[in-house]
Each structure stands twice: as C-alpha cells, then as structure tokens.
C-alpha cells in the first residue's frame, strides 16, 4: 500500500516539471483508515494565504495561482501532507498518533476530539470485550477519570451506579443520563418490587443490552455537550452507539466463553468455633466479674454454667457405637458456592453502497455464589441502513429476554445468606440434624431460628424481563448541507417478578405465600432535527434545531396469594388472594438548538440552548431553560508553535460553562393527595399520603470546565481537566416533625421533597496515554488516569446546617457522605469499656468518658476518596495480546453498619463473632493500659463510633486478558478469517487494608451491611471470524 502511494506521488512529482498557469483544480481527500471522505480538511496553497476546505463528500475546488505547485492538506488528527497540485487529485491522509483523532459522539452530532470544546472521554469496549460482564457499565470502571462505578451487590444482573464528577443531587438522582443511538433510554433498576425490597441487587436495565453489540461509549462530563440534554443532564451523559453494518463482504463472527467465579475478597471473616467459644466464655466471666461483682471462682462457675447456651459444639451425627459426633458448623462452606457463566454470540454484518446491515444473537448464563442467584439472557439485534436518493432510512431493533434469580441480601433479613453467614448463624448453629435432615426453627440454634439452606430451597425471587427497543429514522437531505431528520423510538419493557415463600418456609408458613408483580415500562420518544453543516472558506459552521417529546408510563398489577392447600402456587389455587395495580407516568417536551463555529480548525466556539417542559412540576414551574457556552483554541496549529512541534506535537485549550438540570425523581410530588387503599375493617379508606410541595422546581446544575489536551512527540497524549459543578435548588426529602401527622407515601418517613440547598463538586482529572511501542509485530500502549472530586454541601435550608440520619450526616461545609458518631478514644484502663471523646465544644472536649450520654457525636469521617483511577496496559506481540487493567482508590472511608456485631458481647453471643475480635488485644482487667480492644462482656451495648470506620484504600487487578490469535495463513485454509483463544480474569487480585472486611467497591454512601460482595471471575473463550 505504502509502495503504491510512493509511486503515485512520484508520478505526480514528474508532472510538476511543466510549469502551470493559474489553474482551477478539484480533488478529493479521504482517510486511509476507513476510506471515507474527510470533511472539513483544510487545503492551503503553499506560499500563499489562499485555501479552502473539503465539503461533505471530501471534495474541494481551488484556484492555484501561477508559479505555485504545492498544496498543504491538513486535518486534525490526521497527518498533514504537502503534495503537488493536480486536477482530479486524490489525497489519502493517514491517522496521527494520540487521542485527538477520536470521535466524540454526543448524540446531537459527532465531533473529532480535536474539535470538541467540552470534556468527554471515549471508552473502547473492544479492549474489554473479553471480560464477561452482564452490564456495559461495568466496563467503565477505571477507564475514564472522574467516573466512579459502584454496585450495591455482586449478584448477576444487579444494578450498577455510576457517578460522573461526584454527586450533584441528593434525591432526584445521581445517575447519568444514558443515551443509546441518540435516544435517552431507560436505565437504573427495573426490578418489579424494586431494589431494596426483596433483594438489594435489583435488576439493571442496562443488563438487557448485549455489550458486544456496542460500538463505542462516550462519557460526557461537562456542560458543553450535556446542556443539550437539558433537564436530565446534570449528572453527565453516557452516550452508547451500537454497531451498524459496513459496506463489503458479509462477515460472520462467533464468540463464546465459559468460566467460573468466587468471592473476590475474604468477606467479613469470622472466628472459628473454638476461638468463639473461648471468647464467649471470657465474655460470660467478665460479665460475672465486672457486671455482677462476683468473685473469680463464682465467675468461672457462672461461665461454666452458661457457656453451652451460646457456644455448644453441636452434634452432627453418631458413630457406629452410637456415640455423638460433635463438630462446628462452617457456614461459609455451606452457603457460598462457585458461580459459573457461559456466553455465546454470533453476529453478521455487511452491505453494499446503498444498504448495510448488522445483526447479532447472543445467549448468556451466569450463576452467582449463593443459592438462587443467577441470570440468563437472550438478546437479538438488527440494524439496517438504506440510502435512496436524498433519503437515508435507518431501522434498528434490539430485543432481550432475561431471567434473573435473586436472593435476599443487603440488610439483616432472615433469608439473606450473607447476613446468615456473617451474623445470624454461628459455629454452634446447625443446618442439618444428626440424622441428616434439615434443622428448622429453634433446632437450628441460630439467633433468628432460621436455617438459610432450608429456606433457600423453599423460597425464590425470580424476575423475567422482556424488552424491545425499536427505532425508525428518516434523514432527508433537503438541499445542500441542510438535513431534516425524523426519528421515533419505542422502548417497551415488561418486568415480571415472582416472590415465593412456600408452605414450608419460615416466611410463608403455614400455608405459603406468592407475590407477583406484572409490570410494564414504556417510553415513546420523538425527535425532529434540522441540521446544517457547511464550510465557507476557513469558516466552518454546524447548526442544529430540534424538537423532542417523551412519554413514559409505568404500569403494574400486583397479585398476592396465600393459604395454599397444596404445593401448586398459582393464584387460582390460593385460599386467599388480593390484588392491586397502578399506572403512573410523565411527559417531557423540549426545544433545542446548537451552533458550533470554528475558524481554520484553530478557534472554536459553541453555544447551545434547550427548553424543557415537564409534567412532574406544577404549571407555573413547568418550563426550564438550559444552555451552555464553550470555546477552544487549538494552539498546536499555530505557526508560532512550529519550533517546538518536534516535542509538543499538538495542543488545545478548552473552556465551557453551562446550566443543566435534574428533574424530581417522583412524578406527582407537587400534588397533595388523599390516597385510597388505607384499609380497615374490609374497607378501603383514604388519607393524606405524601407531603406535597406545590413549589417544587428543577434542580439547577452549573458546570464550569477548563481543559488542556497536549500531545508529545506524536506518541504521548495528556488530557487535563479542572471543573466546578454547583447544584442549587437541591430536592431533599426534608425530615419534618411527625407531630402534624403527615408522612411520605413510599415509606413511613415524615419527609417532604423541598428544593433546599446546594452542593458543590470540584476536582481535576488527568489522563495520560502513551503508545510506547508501535511496530508491526509489537505494540504496547499504556493509559493512566486518575482524578479527585471534592464534594461539599454548601446550603441546606433556612438556618438548618445539618441533617442527621443514623450514622449519616449531611452538614454544610462537609462532603455529603459524612459519618456521624462518637469519636472513639480507645479503652478505659479502669473498666475496660470503650472511651469516647466528650467533644462538647468546651475545654473539656478532649477529655474522655465511658458514658455515651456524656459524649457528643461529631463528624468522624467521610466516604470521599483523595484519588481514584485506573491504569491500563495493552500489549500485542506477534500473535499474542495481553491486557491488564488496574483500578485504585486512596483516602476514602467506609462505615461498617453491621452494628449488631459491635456490642463487644450481646448479639455476638447468639451469632457469629467477627474475626476482628481478638482476645489477645482485649482488656484483661483493671489497670490494663496496653489493651487495644475493650472488654468483651455479655450484655454490652454497641455505640456508633469512629471505631467502626474502615479505610477503603485499594488496588485491584480489575481485569486481565491474555489472547492468542492464530496467523491468518493457518486459519484461512479452514475458511476462517480470524481465530483467537483467550483467557480473562476480573477482580483477580485485590490489595486492601485488613480492616476493610467488605468489598472495596461498595454502596455509594459507604455504609455497609451485608451486601453480596464483588466476584472474582475466570473466563476462557474463543473468537472465530468467517
């Protein structure tokens, strides 16, 4: 290829020998990469100021004055070429190294990164294709600075939470807007009964997408592009582009992988049976000695008399002679199993000049590490583009059938296997009676009298999702560069969930109970866009006008059956049934416009505007205006930079400021309502439910961003961004006094949604990307990204400066996720009790007390990290490819909210004892000054204190991939175009403090109880192309 180009150029040079008079010439510029025309490339006659830019088909016309023969052709992200001028010439530009040539997809137009004025980053899902995750969000971890991915649960298909540049809202949601192929799409939890009810995992709407169908993901972080999404863009936008067909021979690709998973960390280790017994013995003795004032001898008698109540080695069977065999129960072994997964996918793509298509089918199955956890998914995708005359028709259809099984996790519910393992069972409780049958009720000897193994067999929580996402778009090139497009999208999801507690279960006994949620979520979107993009000499203009509507409806029927006479749990068999249903929804209508201008690809300016009207607000507050201004200067293209070009290949400075918003999360919060369904004596009564706020408004988010993009020696690119995000008119569920007698409908809380205050996030983000080695047989790229976000609550409401809910405190001047409790001051040498700083704000503040009533709670820490990011290496050597992706976080704190276990001897007497109780470190008696743990004593109580803060610092080998691609020569004999085998692992290694006994990737607020921890996954796969 290169040889041919050289010959071509040589031929051109030969022609130049004959001097030209002033001539009109035409030519075409294409890109070597995709053979597509380069739009907006600048053509300059060397030695003059004359020039032009290529049009939408890559064509240019130019008058070359006499004596001038050379043209300089340049385009951002492509290597500049100087070539002899010739009519009918065709110039092929090659890509430049670095990141400035990436395409930023905003959903309202695609931009070369070099011409983009905002802050955005691309994620190439191809690089992470080998790591099997159900949801595409999980691929973002560690890939983009300023983006934090967390999950409340490691269960398959569970909801992931993404935070872009911290949290900008309290109540109206912090998740970004997800846009797929230009249409805002359903995201978050689509579990029928909802995340947090029968499970904490939830059902991730984005798990319905096959991540192999995704071509690219762009994360928009600032206001420049996000403001076009108006009322929903305050938390950033994640723009997903799905694969579409390419002109050429039909390709068939097949990929499949299989693997297994287990716990990524040693989750909440507990004491073994003997260690637990001796600790509890000490606890009883201490109780008698210090609680009852008994003598040493009496204390020993007391402990001897009572220890078997709490820590008896259970009988597990009988030997041949009928003698009892005693053994401690290892609940981790009983409850946690190895998960398995498999994945198959086949895709076809191809097309001709006018028609292109892409189609795929996939099947995925995963089982979790607990009984009843798993998911199974079948997806199909077809995408068709047809060009006729001035029209382009695009049709795309995605459909999904997904089954998900979940187990109760999160809080300390009886069915939660994690809470059972870590808290409610003990080495002294049993799952099986000596004869091998299941233990039940008090026989289990657990504090809750429940056998989780038995319960798992008699309960289930099954979700069935069906989703169809169809888009039809017609683009009409009216005239010149003026396009009108009409697009309609209908997204329909049915979400059904069955929760069974059968006749023999603890929750369902004696006659069984089934709950069924039959729901549907539909969203109809219409988009009209008029766009115009044209170059006038060095002036480039790109303008857009749009009108959009959205109508969203959620409906459900709820059925409840109980009093079953047998084991068939359909509702027609139930002795008692009841039902309820609901329908709710919202509408949104929007006008929008945008103009981008650039001069000579050096100076850029953009302005955008959007006006949204929402049904979620009262008429007078209904419409909101959102806008942004942005500018960039590509100083790297300036002449004065030429001397340093060898080192600093390119550079750009970006600035943006804008306003976008967040809508209230609930649909009718502005209406005060008497609600029916307040049942008494067989009648449906009514009462005021919900504390309405007729003055409810949008949350307003003002975002400022300054960014710098630099490329060094054509090899290393550095992106730096600094931002400030301030959110005002925050909607907060403000706790109200219960005395007026009103309460929120969705819970028992006495709260009302009020636009109360403001939050500020500021921070920086750095991405360094380097093409270390770029040779034919060997390539090595490295990417390091990191960022820090500082979040601060700046105003609450009136004179209020703090809101406390349990261990969480939201206080003005502090990060939103701050923790509130006593400040732990070690062990009292005299009594062995926990000491707390008095913290009363007087000179007495640093004195300590063992009496919590004399101490004051203070802010004891927060969940904010100092630094977090990712480090990625990708190496290709001959037929081997190798990838490593680390994620890390420094300086954050989490709070262990499993407070039942913090009592130094109360619940721990009935259940597991966490391994952090170390008898050797405990207070041994009056005067013991070396103890680092308080006295362990029966009947102690727990206090919320800084003792239970956990450091969240970690470094995690998030993913590792090793692939082998067979040389084309070998496989072509078999009719294959590609054959690759790979191994991948996720969460393979985790380095963390041993004081963090839960997974470092945790709930967003850092308050941890018994959530399913992250999984370590091993995968083996193959890829074949035909």
């Amino acid at each position, binding site marked *: 290829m290169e040889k041919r180009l050289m010959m071509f150029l040589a031929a051109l040079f030969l022609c130049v020998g004959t001097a030209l008079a002033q001539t009109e010439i035409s030519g075409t510029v294409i890109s070597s990469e995709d053979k597509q025309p380069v739009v907006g490339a600048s053509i300059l006659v060397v030695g003059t100021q004359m020039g032009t830019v290529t049009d939408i088909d890559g064509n240019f016309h130019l008058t070359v004055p006499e004596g001038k023969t050379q043209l300089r052709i340049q385009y951002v992200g492509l290597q500049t070429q100087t070539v002899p001028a010739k009519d009918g010439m065709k110039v092929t530009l090659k890509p430049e190294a670095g990141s400035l040539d990436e395409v930023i997809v905003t959903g309202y137009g695609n931009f070369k990164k070099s011409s983009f004025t905002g802050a955005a980053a691309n994620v190439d899902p191809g690089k992470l294709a080998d790591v099997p995750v159900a949801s595409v969000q999980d691929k973002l971890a560690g890939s983009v600075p300023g983006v934090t991915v967390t999950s409340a649960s490691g269960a398959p298909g569970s909801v992931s939470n993404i935070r872009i540049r911290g949290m900008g809202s309290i109540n109206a949601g912090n998740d970004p807007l997800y846009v797929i192929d230009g249409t805002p799409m359903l995201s978050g939890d689509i579990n029928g009964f909802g995340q947090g009810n029968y499970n904490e995992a939830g059902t991730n709407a984005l798990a319905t997408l096959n991540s192999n169908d995704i071509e690219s993901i762009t994360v928009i972080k600032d206001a420049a592009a996000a403001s076009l999404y108006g009322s929903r863009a305050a938390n950033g936008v994640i723009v997903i582009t799905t694969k579409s067909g390419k002109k050429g021979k039909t390709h068939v690709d097949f990929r499949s992988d299989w693997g297994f998973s287990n716990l990524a960390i040693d989750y909440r280790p507990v004491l073994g049976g003997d260690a637990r017994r001796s600790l509890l013995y000490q606890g009883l003795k201490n109780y008698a000695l210090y*609680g*009852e004032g008994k003598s040493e001898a009496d204390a020993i008698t007391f402990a001897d008399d009572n220890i078997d109540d709490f820590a008896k080695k259970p009988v597990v069977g009988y030997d041949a002679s009928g003698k009892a065999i005693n053994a401690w129960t290892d609940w981790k072994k009983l409850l946690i199993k190895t998960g398995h997964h498999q994945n198959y996918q086949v895709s076809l793509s191809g097309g001709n000049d006018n028609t292109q298509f892409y189609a795929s089918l996939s099947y995925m199955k995963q089982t979790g590490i607990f009984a009843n956890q798993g998911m199974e998914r079948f997806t199909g995708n077809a995408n068709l583009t047809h060009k006729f005359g001035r029209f382009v028709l695009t049709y795309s259809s995605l459909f999904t059938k997904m089954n998900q099984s979940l187990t109760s996790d999160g809080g300390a519910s009886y069915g939660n296997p994690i809470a059972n393992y870590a808290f409610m069972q003990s080495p002294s409780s049993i799952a099986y009676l000596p004869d091998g049958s299941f233990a039940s*009720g*008090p*026989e289990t000897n657990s504090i*809750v*009298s429940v056998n989780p193994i038995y319960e798992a067999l008699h309960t289930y929580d099954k979700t069935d999702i069906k989703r169809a996402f169809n888009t039809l*778009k017609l683009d009409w090139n009216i005239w010149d560069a003026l396009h009108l497009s*009409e*697009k*309609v999208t209908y997204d329909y999801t049915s979400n059904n969930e069955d929760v069974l507690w059968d006749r023999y279960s603890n929750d369902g006994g*004696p*006659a069984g109970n089934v709950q069924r949620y039959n729901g549907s979520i539909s969203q*109809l979107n*219409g*988009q*009209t866009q008029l766009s115009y993009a044209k170059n006038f000499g060095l002036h480039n203009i790109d303008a857009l006008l749009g009108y959009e509507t959205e*109508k969203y409806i959620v409906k459900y029927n709820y059925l409840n059956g*109980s009093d079953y006479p047998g084991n068939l749990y359909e509702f027609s068999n139930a002795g*008692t049934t*009841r039902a309820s*249903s609901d329908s*709710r*929804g919202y*509408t949104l*209508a929007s006008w929008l416009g945008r103009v981008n201008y650039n001069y000579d690809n050096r100076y850029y300016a953009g302005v955008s505007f959007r006006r949204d009207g929402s*049904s979620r607000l009262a008429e007078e507050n209904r419409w909101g205006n959102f806008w942004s201004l942005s500018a960039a200067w590509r100083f790297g293209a300036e002449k004065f930079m030429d001397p340093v070009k060898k080192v600093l290949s390119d550079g750009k400075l970006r600035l943006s400021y804008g306003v976008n918003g967040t809508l209230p999360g609930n*649909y*009718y919060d502005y*209406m005060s*309502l008497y609600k*029916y369904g*307040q*049942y*008494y*004596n*067989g*009648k*449906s*009564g*009514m*009462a*005021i439910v919900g*504390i309405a706020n007729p003055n409810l408004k949008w949350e307003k988010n003002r975002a400022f961003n300054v960014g710098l993009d630099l490329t060094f020696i054509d090899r290393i690119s550095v992106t730096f961004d600094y931002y400030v995000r301030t959110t005002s008119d925050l909607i907060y569920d403000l*706790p*109200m*006094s*219960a*005395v*007026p*007698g*009103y*309460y929120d409908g969705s819970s*028992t809380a*006495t709260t009302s949604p009020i636009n109360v205050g403001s939050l500020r996030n500021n921070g920086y983000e750095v991405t360094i990307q380097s093409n270390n080695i770029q040779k034919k047989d060997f390539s090595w790229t490295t990417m390091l990204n990191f960022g820090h976000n500082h979040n601060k609550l700046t105003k609450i409401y009136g004179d209020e400066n703090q809101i*406390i809910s*349990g261990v969480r405190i939201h206080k003005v001047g502090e990060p939103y996720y701050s923790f509130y409790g006593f400040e732990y001051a070690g062990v009292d040498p005299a009594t062995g009790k926990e000491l707390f700083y008095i913290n009363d704000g007087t000179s007495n503040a640093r004195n300590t007390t063992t009496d*919590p*009533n004399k101490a004051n709670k203070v802010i004891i820490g927060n969940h904010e990290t100092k630094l977090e990011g990712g480090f990625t290496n990708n190496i290709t050597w001959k037929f081997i490819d190798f990838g490593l992706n680390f994620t890390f976080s420094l300086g954050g704190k989490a709070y262990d909210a499993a407070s039942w276990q913090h009592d130094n001897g109360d619940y721990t007497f009935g259940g597991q004892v966490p391994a952090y109780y170390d008898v050797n470190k405990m207070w041994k008696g009056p005067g013991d000054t070396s103890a680092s743990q308080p006295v362990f004593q029966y*009947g102690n109580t727990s206090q919320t204190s800084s003792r239970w803060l956990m450091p969240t610092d970690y470094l995690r080998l998030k993913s590792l991939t090793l692939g082998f691609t067979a040389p084309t020569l070998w496989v072509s004999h078999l009719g294959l175009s590609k054959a690759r085998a790979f191994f991948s692992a996720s969460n393979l290694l985790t380095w963390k403090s041993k004081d963090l006994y839960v997974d470092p990737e945790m709930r967003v607020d850092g308050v941890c109880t018994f959530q399913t921890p992250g999984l370590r996954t091993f995968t083996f796969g193959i890829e074949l192309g035909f």
Partner: protein
Amino acid sequence: MLATAVLFGLASCGDEFFDQTPSDGVPSGTAIKNSEDLGTARTGMYAALKGTSNFSDYYGQQMFLYGEMHGEDLQYNSKYGSNRASFYYKMEYTSASNFNAYGIWQSPYIVIQTANHIIEAADGGKLTDANDADAKALIDQYRAEALVLRAMATFDLTRVYGKTYTEDNGASLGVPLVTKTLEATEKPGRSTVAECYTQVIKDLNEAINSGKLATSPEVGYMGLYAAKALLSRVYLTKGDWADALSTAEDVINNSGNTLWAADEYVNAWKKDDKNHSKEMLFELSITNSNDWNDRNGIAYLYAENRPSVPGYGDVCATKKFVELLAEDPQDVRADVFLAPSADKKHVFNGAKVYLNKMPAANGDVRYSNVPILRLSEVYLNAAEAAFKSGNTTKAAQYLNDIIKNRTSDTAQQVTAANITLQRILLERRKELVGEGQRFFDAMRNNETITRYTNDADRGWHDILTTEVRSYNRDFFKSLAAIPSRETDANPNLKKQQNPGYSN
C-alpha cells in the same frame, strides 16, 4: 410519514400533554365532598389507629409491648423469640435514636391528624349533603368518633412521654397538643401533662355529650360506652376517683354489656364466639389480608411459632406470673395461656406461657381482632376508684364481680373489710395481662416493678442489667425518649427531651 404523525401528534397536545395524574389518589382540596367521602376518611382514620406492617408503632404492636414488656408479668421470650419484643424488655436504650425503631410517636399523631381533618370537614359547612338528615347524622357521628380517637391518641402519648399525672399533678411536660390541622412544616413544642389531660377530657366529654356516638356500634368502631370506658381510664390515671367511679358505673349500668362468665371466658376471646361481644367495648377489626398487620401485628408476636399456626413467639409469661395464676387452680385465666407445642430447649417444662387473647381466626392469628377496651377493665377501674375514694363496699362489690366470673373458688372473694389496694391491683394484673396496661398501672400507683432479684429467682428471664431488674417511676427509663428522628427535625422538642437520654 408515521414518524411525523406521531411527533406532531404529541406536539399538538399543548398543555394537556403535561396533565399526568396518579391512579391512586385525588387532590386533597377536593377529596372530601360529602358524607360518603367523610366515611372513607373515617376508614382511613381507623386504619391509622390499627397501623400496618410498616406502621407498628401504636396499637398494631408497640403500644402493647410498651405496656407489657416493661412489666413483670410478661417477658420477652429470649430463648425462642425473634427480638421484636426485646426493646422495652431489656431497656438497654440510652439515646433518643434508639427509639427511632420502637418509639410510639408517629402513628398516634397520624390518628390525630386524620381526626382533625374529619372534624374540620364536618365543621367546615362545605359538605354537599349536610342538609340531608341521614347524611348529617353520619357526619356528626364520624365527627364524634374523631374526637374520641384524638383524645385516645393524645392520652396514650401523654402516658408514654409525660410523668404519670399523679406524680406531680400534671405539672411536667406532656406532649405537643394538636387540636387542629397543621401545616407539615410546623414544629410544635410540648404542653404540660395537665394541659394534655384537660384537652383529652374535653374531647371525650364533647363526644359523649354530643349524643352522636352509637350506643351499640358496629364491631371495630368507637361507640358511646367505649368512649366512657376510656374516660374512666383517663380519670383513674388522673387520680380523679369520683369521676372515674361515676363514669365506670355509667358503663357498668347502662352499656348493656356483661362480664364473661367463668365458663365462657376462654372461648370468648375468639372473635366469632357468641359471647365475644359481651365484654368487648372496642377492638380493632381485622377481616382480611388487606387490613391485617401481617407478621408485625401484636397477635403474631404473642403466638408461639407452631407449624400449623405460626407466630413469632416473642412474648411469654414470666415464671412468677405462671406461679401466681397457679395459686388458684380454679381460675380460668390460666387457660388463656397455651403450653408450648414444642420446647426444644426445655425451658418451660410444660407451663402455659403463650398468651392467647388474640386467638387464631381462620387458622391464623393475623386475622384476630385486637382488643383495646373491655368491660372487665371498667369494673376494675370502678373497684379501684371506689377504694381510693374510701368506698370499700363498692370496691369489694365490683372486684367480686370480676372474681366470681373468673374462679369458682369463693375464698378468692373479698369483703369491704378485707379489701386492699394490693388485692385490686393483683386482680387487675391477672385480668388485663397482655392488654398493654400493666406498666401504666404500676406507674400511676407508684409500684416497683421487679422482674427478678438474683440468679436463683431469675425464672425464664434473660440476663438483664441490674438497673432494670427492679425499678420504679424514679428511674429515667420509665419515660420514653422522643425519637431522635423527631427531635432532629423539630428543634423545639430537642430542647424538651426527657432527661437522661443522649440524642
């Protein structure tokens, strides 16, 4: 084009496009238009009194546990229970935040709020059928019931958070008094106990004297004699013996209700028993799985977890109370307790420990009604009030009415000569056990509650901290803390927290 049609179709809707309304409620301004709507709101008021599985902080559950678990006759069943009844039993609470999950606070105020809305709608003159005589009668009746429920909730709150009236004649702090509908943003402070009693008595008398309360109300609704029974309880608690006695006698003589006979007693607790209504003046009516409180209902906590009729088995009788009942083998009240169907830890040795005053209906205790006001209590009120006013004849007469109907052992009966307050209170404990009265009775009579004193007489008790094994009303924990959820939202109450508690 289809696409264009849909787009412009949506666009042309104008403001109607934004008119989205919920499917489960109506704007509150237009909700109560006539007597029928007022009746629907009345159902909502009783629903608040009954609670739900989420609102268990009043008569659904906690009000009973508050009155019983503090006491010495019932205990948390620490060997078999689910920890739902241990809070007021162990009394390990030290801070207001401990009360967020168990405090009796929110639901009584919801009852008051719903009652105030009904009263104001009835008084507002805007009900469209207020001129229709039948409708007007209903409106007046609902209004009177609302007054009684408002009084009951205010009285209960005052008993829980304020010192018992007789301790300082109501001089100390009661609870915030709410006598009209409030804005959600209001943050009232506490009135004195005396002010609260004045309002409670005023409301009850207004309702009673209105003549609009039903003399034989439908099961589950407040009637005239239930209101009077409540009033006698209020007077008794206030130490107004004369009014307590005369009100109680009014009920005894005029209500038409009669005491269950000894042979009727055990079965009469069943809501479908023919004698059930004889004594039952007011009970919460539970009819189906829509209006039950599911497993958070008090009946479920009292019931043993049997394979056939499950419960949580959180509450059992104390060993001392079982022994107390056993002193009179003829006393039928021992039989309202059930022996364990299984006792795998060999705790009870066959003793009858599970209280069965809310027995299973349709095979499930969740369908049982919840007794709140009973004629026996009125007799006991009369006996105590008579005794304290010096009328031992009447005291003996009313106490013997109870004794005669509970035991065939005539030696148990008293005379005007030998009756003592202690004897009356003992009878009260036996009769009302489990009905949520014991702790309040002990407080107003300044009794010391003794659960156990040493390991030898611990019985089935869990190991309790020394301070709660035996205590009286001088102990700060004899008053609940206002939950920190409230004091954090309401600074006026934060300043008025009961002593001894941290936030």
